[in-house]
């Protein structure tokens, strides 16, 4: 019993210690925390909000790119404002962005050196207690304790898995360790108690780059980052092993990289279905946010095996045709962002196999980012009367060379077994 009481006391004191520390951290850091608002100039009202934190004495503030994205894409239409812990407002200017890691640097004018958040030099340890700061749902600045759970395994660009509630509006807020050093930036949530953070080294890299030379144009900076990221992604994909796997009677490629996650499904349980369908789908678990209606960096592959059950060939092919008729793009983009799709179709039979397919390739160009394209490919087997194999992929934001190298390898990897 004594032991139990002692345990309870310990727990209580530990909890109160945690709360105390959170309070202390909050009090100490509050002057360097900001709410960031994007103001629509015409209406004078805010169109989006987020959080930010000061990282230098002369007023440089870090936040998420997606918080200020509408300004970055349309600087004439919006302006960026901050609101500090005393309720003072002021204008901010955009200095530099990292669209891939969803970071941005903005600057306020200062009269004297100010307090700021130091960036940590080391990554936290697994299980370490961290404090996430921000302004969820415009409710005022809060502090949320949580734990560091390492980097997310399936992501191509590193993200910290943080166990704690990161809510909308906290985006761009800092996550600090007990020494009040920034170890991450709030970026996304995935439901209850699962949050994702951008690691501190990405912010350090952006800051270092900015110190060397601030970018001449944000748009060009974004274009370079998008081009570099797709180059890095596709050099990894094309250099990786492509394992050939069976999908019923078809051979399909599975690319051996952790960041492409695969799922499968079939209708084998539905006895009344006219066609047996088995689907395998592999996709990149992340994409790059450019604006609320323009995403890029997504990648998706789908393989579909279809087999007719007591069905005439004509009817099977009719259903098959309806299935391949309406492939759509894998990312959201609008009239101001991309051209319309240009398509090519042909009957293709690879020389090293006796397969014969109808292949469709479509691409559209980005308007603001030269030499980047969205591509879509679809191939439908034509050599069996009652069986079909559809292979399909979409990639957003890829260069022509990578697109064609990937397409060629993809086409050569699909066959009947």
């Amino acid at each position, binding site marked *: 019993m004594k032991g139990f009481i002692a345990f309870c006391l310990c727990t209580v004191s530990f909890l109160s210690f945690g709360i105390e520390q959170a309070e202390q951290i909050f009090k100490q850091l509050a002057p360097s925390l900001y709410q960031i608002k994007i103001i629509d100039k015409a209406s004078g009202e805010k169109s989006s909000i987020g959080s930010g934190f000061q990282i230098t004495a002369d007023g440089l503030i870090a936040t998420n790119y997606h918080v200020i994205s509408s300004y970055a894409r349309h600087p004439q239409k919006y302006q960026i404002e901050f609101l500090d812990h005393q309720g003072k407002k002021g204008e901010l200017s955009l200095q530099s962005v990292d669209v891939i890691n969803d970071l941005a640097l903005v600057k306020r004018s200062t009269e004297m050196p100010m307090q700021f958040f130091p960036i940590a030099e080391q990554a936290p340890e697994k299980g370490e207690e961290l404090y996430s700061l921000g302004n969820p749902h415009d409710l005022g600045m809060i502090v949320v304790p949580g734990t560091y759970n390492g980097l997310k395994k399936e992501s191509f660009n590193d993200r910290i898995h943080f166990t704690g509630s990161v809510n909308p509006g906290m985006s761009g807020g800092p996550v600090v360790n007990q020494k009040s050093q920034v170890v991450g930036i709030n970026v996304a949530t995935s439901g209850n108690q699962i949050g994702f953070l951008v690691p501190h080294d990405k912010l350090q890299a952006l800051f270092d780059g900015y110190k060397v030379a601030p970018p001449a144009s944000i748009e060009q900076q974004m274009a370079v980052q998008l081009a570099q990221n797709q180059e890095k992604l596709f050099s990894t994909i094309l250099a990786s092993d492509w394992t050939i796997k069976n999908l019923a009677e078809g051979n399909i490629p599975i690319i051996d990289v952790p960041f492409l996650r695969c799922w499968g499904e079939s209708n084998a349980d539905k006895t*009344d279905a*006219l066609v047996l369908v088995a689907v395998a789908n592999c996709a990149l678990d992340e994409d790059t946010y450019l604006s609320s209606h323009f995403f890029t960096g997504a990648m998706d592959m789908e393989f579909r095996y279809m087999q007719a059950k007591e069905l005439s*060939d*004509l*009817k099977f*092919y*009719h*259903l098959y*045709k309806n299935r*391949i*008729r*309406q*492939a*759509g*793009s894998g990312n959201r*983009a*609008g*009239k101001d962002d*991309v*051209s*319309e*799709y*240009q*398509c*090519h*179709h*042909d*009957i*293709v*039979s*690879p*020389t090293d196999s006796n397969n*014969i*397919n*109808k*292949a*469709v*390739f*479509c*691409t*559209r*160009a*980005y*308007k603001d980012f*030269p030499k980047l*394209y969205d591509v*879509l490919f*679809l191939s*439908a087997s*034509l*050599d*069996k*009367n009652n069986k079909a194999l559809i292979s399909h992929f979409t990639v957003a934001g890829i260069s*022509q060379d990578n*697109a*064609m190298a990937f*397409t*060629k390898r993809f*086409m*050569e990897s699909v066959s009947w077994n």
Partner: protein
Amino acid sequence: MELIIEEISRGHKLLGRHKFAQQNIRIGRGYQNDIILDDPHICPDHLSLDFNGEHWVVTDENSINGSFLEDGKRKADQHIVNSGDVITFGKSQIRVVFPEHPVAESVAFSPFESLINFARQPIALVASILLFTFVAGYIFHLEKTIDVPFTKLFVPAIGMTLLFALWPGAVALVSHLTKHDARVLSQLGIAFVFYNLMWVSDIFQSIVSFNLSANWPIAGLTALIPMALAFCLFWLNCYIGFHMTAKRRLVVSIALTALVFGGSFIVQLSKQPEFRAHPQYDATIMTPSFLFASGSSVETFIEDSNRLFSKATKAAQEDQD
């Protein structure tokens, strides 16, 4: 001298024809006349035509509403008749013709006559309607993603056939109303022969777009086949249903074809969104037995697809300018 008087409608359609050997012809509403017209605006004794040994002369018998020559508002009274003159009185018209008046040349039977005669034979007619119904039912069957009983396909197929029978029915009705022969069976027969040819043209179009790659934009030209078929159908509808000159028949059928295809083209154009976020491609596939093309190599496909990038870049730049 003999004289022929034709009662004609305002649209110059022939309503009745009379031939007279006497020297004096009287026209009016009264029963004592040679030509009795049932038009309340005509007087009982309205008009007479007299042969004076040399000419026929019109005399208006002081009618209330007068008599006029068709060309303008010239009074017909005391007019010396020429062959082919049209006289208007009340709301009626007559045309006066001399026996030696020239007539149009005889028209030879069109080569389509045998096709029309064949299509209206009961057996051929039933066969083509049944074929149409069967194909329509089969297409409904292809569209269903689950197994459905035969009767569920039967009803929409019959409905479709009745719907398509409305057109020849309407043409026959119009020709009946315009005092022509209705010839319902001929109209039905011809219509269903052409509807069935439309199915054939559909299959042909599919085969062409299935086998040809995007490098052969002429595949789009096959869209002209249904237009040509529709033109032929309309031409034959006119030929069967109405007496009209060859030129007029041509104009009417071209106009109908343009109306049907131009109309659907305009409807499609109006539905076209400002920006298409989805790709538009030809996904026609058919069973392997319809595949005649040998297939390009992967390298050729990649090379062809490579050209799209400069096209897309150009489109993006054009939009921005």
